[in-house]
């Protein structure tokens, strides 16, 4: 058998046109080029740019080391307020998605066969529609004189204007709605990995459902919880579309400050500095996650 293996190995060597140690780098090179040129280089550039100084004509920025834009960001009260509001939004959205999503993920994971596939698909399906549209869809429901108000009035739970639309409440509803799949899918993967016999063992040892949940399910699904929280928290930091549509310009978040500098504000170095603060916060969350879970689960 060893001889056969040797013969096969020899035959294999003749068949290769490209040396084995070059094939990997060669195959990866288009992807490497694209991700370097159109993702990493722009990121490095925006960091350099934010330390630059701007002339009257926006496109001419001389590079240098000038921290003016950073000190200006935090000297303005409006920006500090936006920063705190964004932090609050990230925390509340993540916790909100976790609370709403955990029972759902658990519900799916104890189902079996085709039903499980169906319930997972139903969570994934909204992914296939534009989040812009899904956010917009809430306006008719939450608006004054809208559907929810009509239903609540009919049930006698509320009277008069609902006053939810164009407030922070509407923004939170929209956030949880759009980010829930990012939380539920990792949670589901985490809970799914727990061997079902552990639930039975816990029950046989006399534990009730609450004890089983707190001592078996939650601790063992921690990697899923961490992954879900990271996948929800990191993109939420830069969110500006949901606050813009459902907050109606009253809810000014960090992402909106960036948006304005790159559109009507036309101050790109300032926008770059704002965006770098965001980048730093996101890296912070990712580092926290890696510290908690390690890179294997990434």
């Amino acid at each position, binding site marked *: 058998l060893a001889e056969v293996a040797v013969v096969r190995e020899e035959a294999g060597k003749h*068949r*290769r046109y490209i040396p084995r*140690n070059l094939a*990997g*780098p060669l195959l*990866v090179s*288009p*992807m490497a080029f694209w*991700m370097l040129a*159109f*993702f990493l280089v722009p*990121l490095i*550039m*925006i960091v350099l740019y934010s330390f630059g100084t701007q002339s009257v004509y926006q*496109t001419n920025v001389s590079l240098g080391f000038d921290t003016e834009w950073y000190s200006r960001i935090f000297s303005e009260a409006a920006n500090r307020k936006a920063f705190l509001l964004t932090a609050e939004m990230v925390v509340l959205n993540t916790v909100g998605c976790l609370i709403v*999503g955990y*029972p*759902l993920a658990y*519900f*799916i994971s104890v189902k079996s066969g085709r039903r499980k*596939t169906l319930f997972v*698909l139903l969570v994934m399906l*909204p992914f*296939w*529609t*534009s989040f*812009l*549209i899904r956010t*917009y869809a809430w*306006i*008719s*429901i939450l*608006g*004054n*004189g*809208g*559907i929810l108000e*009509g239903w609540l009035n009919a049930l006698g739970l509320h009277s008069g204007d609902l006053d939810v639309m164009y407030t922070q409440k509407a923004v939170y509803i929209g956030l949880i*709605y759009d980010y829930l799949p990012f939380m539920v899918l990792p949670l589901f993967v985490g809970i799914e990995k727990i061997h079902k016999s552990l639930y039975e063992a816990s029950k*046989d040892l*006399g*534990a009730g*459902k*609450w*004890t089983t949940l707190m001592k078996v399910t939650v601790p063992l699904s921690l990697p899923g919880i961490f992954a879900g929280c*990271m996948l929800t928290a*990191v*993109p*939420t930091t*830069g969110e*500006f*579309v949901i606050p*813009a549509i459902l907050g109606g310009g009253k809810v000014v978040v960090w*992402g909106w400050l960036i*948006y304005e500098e790159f559109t009507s504000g036309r101050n*790109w170095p300032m926008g*770059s500095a704002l965006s770098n603060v*965001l980048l730093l916060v*996101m890296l912070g969350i990712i580092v926290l996650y890696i510290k908690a879970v390690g890179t294997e689960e*990434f």
Partner: protein
Amino acid sequence: MSDEAVALTPGMPANRGKAHLSLWDRIMRHSDIGIATWAILVYVFFYLPIVVLVIFSFNKQTLNLRWEGFTFDWYIAKPFSRPDQKVIGVIHDTELITAFITSLEIAIISTLVSVAIGVLGSFALVRFEFRTKTVWDGLNYTKIIIAEIVAGVSTLLFFTTLNNWLDQNVGFDFFNIFQPGFWTVVIAHIAWNIPFVVVIIRARLLGFDRSIEEAGADLGANPVSVFFRITLPVIFPGILAASLLAFTLSFDDFVTTFFVIGQNYNTLPVKIWSMVRMGITPEINAISTFMMAFSMTIIIFLELKARVSEVL
């Protein structure tokens, strides 16, 4: 000893030990019903807005808050076809149609390129060992989770600077492809799609039984025909699923597109954004419904033909 024996007997009394349960355990005793109810409510939460959106695209009321009556006007009304005609159906709105075609072109080109690059990259990452592997992995994962606005504005900055630099220092302007417009969106979308393609193809390659490739090689097939006659057919459902995902990501993308598209082009999401900023009308519902129906048709078609859901 006798206690243990009783506990391990399958037919032990069901209520044994329940007297010691804590308050929370007693509250949670019938939690299955609670969890099921919760799950159903969450699914309602998921789909209610989408259903309302579709229904309201047939609404007569222009404010789009209450139901006033059924009409197809938002879809098919010809401009000035009746004296009282105020609305233009989306199929007669040339701006929307142009935006739709632009979206479609961008999505098709970026899907083809990103899937090709992503498949090669996945092969490299799964089947070969080389030093920079973790770098490309790390870049891909970072790209997936990072807030899109950062990628969007940095790419805009990059393209603008590159375009200016080319204008000033190189006589040839490369057909202006780096000037914010159609091609910058295509380039940015490819970078946006690649990591997702890699995630899917890679999973497919990891579950690949390589002994069938060896069998093919032993039977005399050269590497090229092994790839085309064995490897490719096996990972084909993965490629299909990756293409589907890449297509929808590109077709639905708003944030990156918005920043790098410049003044002269519109994709459907960018157009919808500017319409929403102007105020809500059932016309937005109609075009949104159309967009969702378009995506869903492709998904259902591929699902029926290739069962892509099993790969995702």
